[in-house]
C-alpha cells in the first residue's frame, strides 16, 4: 500500500508513477490515472504562459485530506497525487492523480473523486498570460457541481467544522 502526496515545482514522470502504484502488489488489477495539462487557450484567448500560486503548508494537508476521504469511501491499494506550482507553459503537466485498486470500478471512481475535490478544495490559483495581459482564472461553476455529485460539496465542508 502506497499513499503519497507531493506539491512541487518540478515536473513528474507519469509512467514511473503509474508503475509504482502496482509494483510489488500483485493484488492490484486496475490503475486509473489522470494528468492535467496547461492548455494554450482559455475563455477564447491565447495563453502564452501560466503561474500557479498556492498556499504552502495548507496545500499538502488539503490533498492528504482528500486522499484520506477517498480511502474511506473505496477499498484502494495505492493513491498518488502530485500538483505543481510556479511558472508553467502550454503543454506542461500540472497535476497527476493515480489510484490502484483490485478492480476498475473503484479505481476510476476514486480517481475522478480526487480530481473533483482537488478542483474545489486544494488552495491553488492559476494566473495566465494572454495578449490582453495577465489575469486570474475564474473558478468554474461546473467544478462546484462536479464536486457536489459526490454528495458532500463545498458547503458541507464549511459547515462541518
Amino acid at each position: 500500500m502506497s499513499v503519497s502526496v507531493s506539491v512541487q515545482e518540478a515536473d513528474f514522470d507519469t509512467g514511473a508513477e503509474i508503475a509504482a502504484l502496482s509494483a510489488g502488489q500483485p493484488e492490484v488489477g486496475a490503475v486509473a490515472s489522470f494528468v492535467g495539462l496547461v492548455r494554450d487557450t482559455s475563455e477564447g484567448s491565447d495563453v502564452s504562459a501560466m503561474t500557479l500560486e498556492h498556499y504552502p503548508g495548507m496545500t499538502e494537508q488539503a490533498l492528504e485530506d482528500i486522499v484520506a476521504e477517498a480511502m474511506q469511501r473505496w477499498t484502494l491499494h495505492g493513491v498518488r497525487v502530485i500538483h505543481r506550482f510556479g511558472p508553467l507553459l502550454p503543454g506542461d503537466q500540472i497535476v497527476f492523480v493515480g489510484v490502484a485498486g483490485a478492480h476498475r470500478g473503484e479505481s476510476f471512481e476514486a480517481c475522478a473523486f480526487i480530481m473533483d475535490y482537488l478542483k474545489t478544495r486544494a488552495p491553488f490559483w492559476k494566473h495566465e498570460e494572454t495578449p490582453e495581459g495577465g489575469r486570474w482564472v475564474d473558478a468554474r461553476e461546473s467544478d462546484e457541481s462536479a464536486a457536489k455529485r459526490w454528495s458532500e460539496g463545498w458547503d458541507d465542508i464549511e459547515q462541518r467544522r
Partner: protein
Amino acid sequence: MKVKVLYFASLREAVGCASEDLDVPAEVHTLGALRAFLAARGEGWEALGVGRNVRAALNQQMSGAEAALAAGDEVAFFPPVTGG
C-alpha cells in the same frame, strides 16, 4: 487577540498585502466578523465585502464564516481555488 492573516491570488492583489500580523478587536470572534472588519478598511478591501466570492481557511483548513477565532490562529482569505 493576535492572529496572522494571509491573502492569496486576486485577493492579495486587490488588498495589496500578502500577509499581516493583526491585533483583532475584542468584538471580532469569528472568521465572518474578521472578514467584515477587514472589508471596512477602505480602498481595495471591499474585495472582502458582502457578495464577493471569498473563501477562507482557519489554521489551514477550509472554514466557514461561523468558525471561532483564537489567539495565534492563522487565517487566510482567497478567491475560489482554480488548480488541477
